[in-house]
């Protein structure tokens, strides 16, 4: 333990900036998972694998084809949108149709199957080797002694844009309204003439696109590797549970919280105990506030 460091304001501020940067990444990771869970009730265990596919897509488009980074990130998101749509239509939708109310357990076992397939396919095709980029944006600046890389700033701005964009999409577009309506009352949504199968497909594809794009965005921090997704999946789970399953905005707040905790914990104690502590915190949240840390209701699911 080294609390002495915390007596220097610059160090504390630096930890804060680092934690914020990291937390925003975790928040971004959790959003797709939260969206899919919130609307469909499905826990997507292939979430991390989708991230992995996103990093590879980014690598190919940006490095192999030499396309500018912003376009490559969008390409990764679009690629995952298509993959998500196809998987939902071919695998998840039939399962929901057949199982009726009880499809959820089978649904997440299905995504586990997807996860195993995708990870090992990546291993065969790409081999156990990192494919990454040094950084998205060059350069950094000092603000009164605190180092801020431009990359952090870019990720931060993108995160804000994604949160606002998603909020606007959900609020002001017909599809966004239909997605919210379907998650609240699928039968009534059908009575409005909404084809809820399409809505589920769009939702799953959108959640996949989010995590795919995030995979592209974070390629420099998380280089493409077949099992890179398992850590991402765990982090996303933590963020989504702490924020409240299915709550997209709270996932971002929980992500930042997690990033800050990790940053300060690592600054003070260099051991691996913060992992145990975070796991314990997650268990406590699940037991005492299953609806999430920030939800007003303490109702149990």
């Amino acid at each position, binding site marked *: 333990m080294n609390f002495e460091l915390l007596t220097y304001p610059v160090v504390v501020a630096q930890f804060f900036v680092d934690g914020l940067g990291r937390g925003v990444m975790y928040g971004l990771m959790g959003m797709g998972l939260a969206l899919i869970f919130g609307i469909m009730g499905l*826990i997507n265990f292939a979430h991390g694998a989708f991230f992995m596919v996103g990093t590879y897509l980014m690598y190919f488009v940006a490095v192999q084809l030499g396309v500018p980074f912003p376009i490559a990130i969008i390409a990764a998101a679009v690629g995952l949108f298509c993959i998500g749509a196809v998987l939902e239509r071919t*695998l998840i939708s*039939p*399962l929901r149709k*057949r*199982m009726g109310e009880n499809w*959820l*357990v*089978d649904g*997440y*076992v*299905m995504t*586990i*199957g*997807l*996860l*195993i*397939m*995708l*990870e*090992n*396919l990546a*291993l*065969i095709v790409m081999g156990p080797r990192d494919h990454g980029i040094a950084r998205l944006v060059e350069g950094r600046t000092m603000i009164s002694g605190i180092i801020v890389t431009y990359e952090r700033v870019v990720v931060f701005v993108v995160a804000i844009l994604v949160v606002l964009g998603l909020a606007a999409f959900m609020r002001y577009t017909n599809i966004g309204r239909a997605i919210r309506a379907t998650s609240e009352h699928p039968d009534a949504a059908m009575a409005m003439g909404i084809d809820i199968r399409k809505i589920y497909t769009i939702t799953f594809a959108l959640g996949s696109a989010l995590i795919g794009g995030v995979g592209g965005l974070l390629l420099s921090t998380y280089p493409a590797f077949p099992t890179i997704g*398992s850590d991402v999946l*765990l982090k996303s*789970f933590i963020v989504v*549970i702490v924020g409240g*399953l299915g709550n997209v905005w709270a996932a971002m707040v929980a992500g930042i919280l997690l990033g800050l905790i990790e940053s300060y914990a690592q600054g003070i104690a260099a*051991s*691996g*105990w913060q*992992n*145990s502590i975070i*796991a*314990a915190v*997650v*268990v406590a949240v*699940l*037991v005492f506030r*299953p609806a999430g840390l920030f939800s007003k209701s303490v109702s*149990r*699911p």
Partner: protein
Amino acid sequence: MKISSLWGYLGAGLALLVLLLVPPLADNHYITAVFVSVLLFFILAALFDFMLGYLNIFNFGMGGFMALGAYTSGLLTHHFGISPWIGLLAGGCSTLLLGLFAGVITLRLRGIYIGLTTLFLAEFVLFALSNLREYTRGAAGLQVSTFPDLFGISFGRGDPLSLYYLLFVICVVIYASLHFLVRSRVGLVFKAIRDDQLGTSVLGFNVVRYKLLNFAVASFFTGVVGAFYGNYIGILVPTTQEFGISRTTEILTIAYVGGRGTLWGSLLGAFALIGLQEGFRVIDEWRLVLYGAFLVFVLMVFPQGLAGAVKQLAGWVEARFTGSAQQEDPEQKASTGPAQDGPEVTPKLPDRKVP
């Protein structure tokens, strides 16, 4: 009825015969090792299914539970020189406590929330084990001593067959206990709780007690199997592949492929998936892709798993055999016919015409 139970005995006899005779007849370390993993995964999947298939408890912490059993036994023998035989029981007991704890904290949770809680509980155990380097040696690995001789039989790692038979006995004991439980009144209550928790509690059953019983039994046996596994592999490393999500995923896959709610289905699942893995060693790297594809395929095509497919097949053969295939009784239309003594209002025929 008679014939279907006959099928059961036939299947059980065949399984026992294969499990008992093939490894010694093959007399080949590789075959024995394959059979050890079949038995290990079979019993772990059966335990997983005992929770999921009968009480809808999604224990996503199987790997961590195993780890606790394995480490309890390993640490006790390593630091205190306690016999690994006692270590088996000690591993079971410590895991039982973990299971009871998990049971108590998840009592009021449901479905995926139980799964996530057990998952992170197991992650906590695993992180803690790798952090307690002074005792567990962390990632460097903890040596586990072998079982001492018993009744003049050597259980060293040079004698895989005797270890195999030891595991066989453990599996028989566990399977018999689970089978007895699910076939008894307790099993009926389990199913009742699974289908309608509130209704069952209203009938006067103590739902809490039954849930904890399920957790306790499954966790104890998981710990015992974990302790055996530790002794079998000889060195414990707290990795995800050994004791983390990956391990749980494998167990879950086998339980699912075998068929939910049928303990014996797990044996089919274990044979199918381990067989698949070993059979396809030639195309080495593709076998795990096949593993995932097989899981997806079974979910899509055989929702009841291989056990369901076998049951269907047996039912079909039986129907052929006894000739009682379909006895479609004519619709009992008379039973709910129109009321005879209704008030005499307008006649029943529609008085409006469709042009």
